[in-house]
C-alpha cells in the first residue's frame, strides 16, 4: 500500500513532514476557506443568482474584470519590454531596475494606494497633466487601472524573464544563418517560444488584479455602480451585516480565480513543453 503511494527512499521523515503539511494546510487554509461554500449552501440557488446578478453586483464585476483586463494588457506589452531589456541589454542601473521590479510585491498595498492617489489627483504630479488632457486620473476607472498595472507588473516580468534567459542561443543563430532577418527571428522564432510564459504571467497578473483591494480603494473613489470594485462590495455588504450577500459575491470571484489558476498552470505546462523540458 505504502509502495503504491510513495516511491521507496532511505530518507526519513516522509510521513511526519507530509502529515504536518496536510494538517497545517487543512487547519489554516482549507477548513476556513470551505466556510465560504458552507455559508453559500444556506442560500437557495435562486437567492444566490439574485445576489450575483443584482445590478450593483454586475456593475462591480464588470468594473473589476474590465480594469483588470486592461491593466493585464498594459503589463503584457511593457512587462515583456522590461523583461527583454533586462535579459538582453546592458545599461547603467540595470541591477537596481532588476531588483525594483519586485517593489510592488514588497510595498504594502495601502502605501501603494495612497501614493498613487496623491500622484494622480487633479493637483498631483501626474494628475495635473492628465487633467490638461481632459482625463480624470484618480477616482475613476483610469485610476483603478493604473493601480492594477502597478500591482501586476512583477508577475509578467518574473515569469517571462527566466524563460528568455533559458532560450537556446542556437535557435536564433540557426534562424539568422537560414536567412531570417532580426525582425523575423524575433517575431517568428522567439515570440512563439515565450508566448505561453507571457500568457502565464498575464493570467497571474489578471487574477491578482481581480482580487486586489488595498492599492485600489484609495484611488477608486468607491462610487456604487461607477467606481466600486467587487472586493469593496464584499466589504460593504459585510459592514451592513449582509453575510450571505458578501459570501455569494465571494464565491463568484473564487470560482473565477480557480479557472484562471488552472489556465495559468496549463500555460506553464505549455512553456516547459516548448523549452523541451517535458
Amino acid at each position, binding site marked *: 500500500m505504502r509502495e503504491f503511494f*510513495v*516511491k521507496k*527512499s532511505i*530518507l*526519513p521523515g*516522509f510521513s511526519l*513532514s*507530509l502529515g*504536518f*503539511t*496536510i494538517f*497545517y*494546510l487543512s487547519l*489554516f*487554509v482549507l477548513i*476556513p*476557506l470551505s466556510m*465560504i461554500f*458552507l455559508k453559500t449552501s444556506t442560500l437557495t440557488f435562486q437567492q444566490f443568482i439574485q445576489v450575483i446578478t443584482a445590478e450593483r453586483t454586475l456593475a462591480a464585476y464588470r468594473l473589476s474584470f474590465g480594469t483588470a483586463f486592461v491593466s493585464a494588457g498594459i503589463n503584457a506589452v*511593457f512587462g515583456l*519590454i*522590461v523583461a*527583454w*531589456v533586462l535579459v*538582453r*541589454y546592458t545599461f547603467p542601473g540595470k541591477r537596481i*531596475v532588476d531588483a*525594483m*521590479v519586485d*517593489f510592488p510585491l*514588497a*510595498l*504594502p498595498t*495601502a*502605501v*501603494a494606494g*495612497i*501614493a498613487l492617489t*496623491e500622484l494622480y489627483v487633479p493637483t498631483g*504630479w501626474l494628475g495635473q497633466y492628465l487633467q490638461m488632457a481632459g482625463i480624470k486620473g484618480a477616482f475613476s476607472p483610469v485610476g483603478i487601472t493604473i493601480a492594477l498595472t502597478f500591482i501586476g507588473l512583477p508577475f509578467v516580468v518574473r515569469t517571462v524573464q527566466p524563460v528568455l534567459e533559458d532560450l537556446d542561443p542556437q535557435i536564433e*543563430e540557426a534562424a*539568422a*544563418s537560414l536567412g531570417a532577418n*532580426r525582425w523575423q527571428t524575433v517575431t517568428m522564432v522567439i515570440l512563439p517560444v515565450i508566448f505561453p510564459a507571457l500568457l502565464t504571467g498575464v493570467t497571474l497578473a489578471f487574477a*491578482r488584479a*481581480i*482580487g*486586489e483591494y*488595498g492599492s485600489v480603494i484609495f484611488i477608486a473613489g468607491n462610487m456604487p455602480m461607477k467606481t466600486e470594485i467587487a*472586493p*469593496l462590495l*464584499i*466589504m460593504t455588504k*459585510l459592514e451592513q*451585516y449582509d*453575510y450571505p450577500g458578501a*459570501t455569494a459575491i*465571494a464565491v463568484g470571484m473564487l470560482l473565477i480565480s480557480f479557472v484562471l*489558476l488552472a489556465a495559468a*498552470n496549463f500555460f506553464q505546462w505549455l512553456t516547459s513543453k516548448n523549452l523541451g523540458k517535458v
Partner: protein
Amino acid sequence: MSQLNARTEPRFVRYFLITIALAFFALFLVLPLVCVFHNALSKGWVVYFDALKHPDAIAAMRMTLMTALVVVPMNLVFGVAAAWAISKFDFRGKGLLLSLIDLPLSVSPVIAGLIFILLFGAQGFLGPWLIAHNIRIVFAWPAIVLATLFVTVPMVARELIPIMKSQGTEEEEAALTLGASAWKTFWLVSVPNLRWGILYGVILCNARAMGEFGAVSVVSGHIRGLTNTMPLHVEILYNEYQSAAAFAVASLLAMLAIVTLIAKSIVEAHIRQGQK
C-alpha cells in the same frame, strides 16, 4: 550578416526599448516611492517624528510586530516541512498538494478576511460557542494573526521547494549511510544547505505579513490603539486628511519594502553562487 549581431538588434532599436522600459519603470515604480517620502516630509521633520511617536502609531507598530513574530516562524516550520515532503520524495498527488499550497495567493485578501468572520464572527459557525465561553477572536489580535497567516502560508514553502529540489538527496543519503541519525542529518546537512533559502523565504514572508491590508482590514475592527496594524493606521490617518502623518507611517513601511528588496538581491546572489 556577421555572427555577432545574429542575437541582437540594431542600436536604435536597443536604445528605444531601453528608453521605454526605463520610462515605464520611472513612472510606475520610482515616482510612487518618491511621492511617499516627499509627502511624509512635506510638513517638516517635526510633524514627521510626531506622527511616528504618537501613541496610536506606536500601538499599531506593536500590533504589526507581534503579528509578524507569530506568523513568520509558523510559516517557516510549515515551509520546511512542505518543502521536505515535496522535494525529497516522489508520491501521488504531489501536483495537487502544490496547487493547494499556492491557493491563498489567488484568493482576494478581502475573502481571506471574510472566511474568518464566517467562522468566528458573532453570526459565524463557532460564534455562539465563543461568545458563551467569552473568547474573543474576531475584531481582536487572534483574527489578525489568522488572516495574516492565511495570506502568507505559501511564502516560505514557495522559495524553499525549488532550492531543495535542485540540491537533490545525495548528501542526505551519504550522511544516513555513514550512520548519522535522521535528526542529525536534517540539522547538520539539510539545514545548512538551505540557510540562504530559509532567509529569503523569511524576508518575503515578513514583508507580506507586516504589510497585509485587505484581509486584516476585514477582521480587525479598526479599534484605534488596540487592533490597528500599521497599514490600517495609515488608512485611518489618510481618510482623516492627515496626509503628512499618514505618509510618515507609510514611509516606515516603504523603508521595510526597500530593505526587503536589498536583502532579497543579496540572498539571490548567494543562492546563484551556491548553484554554480
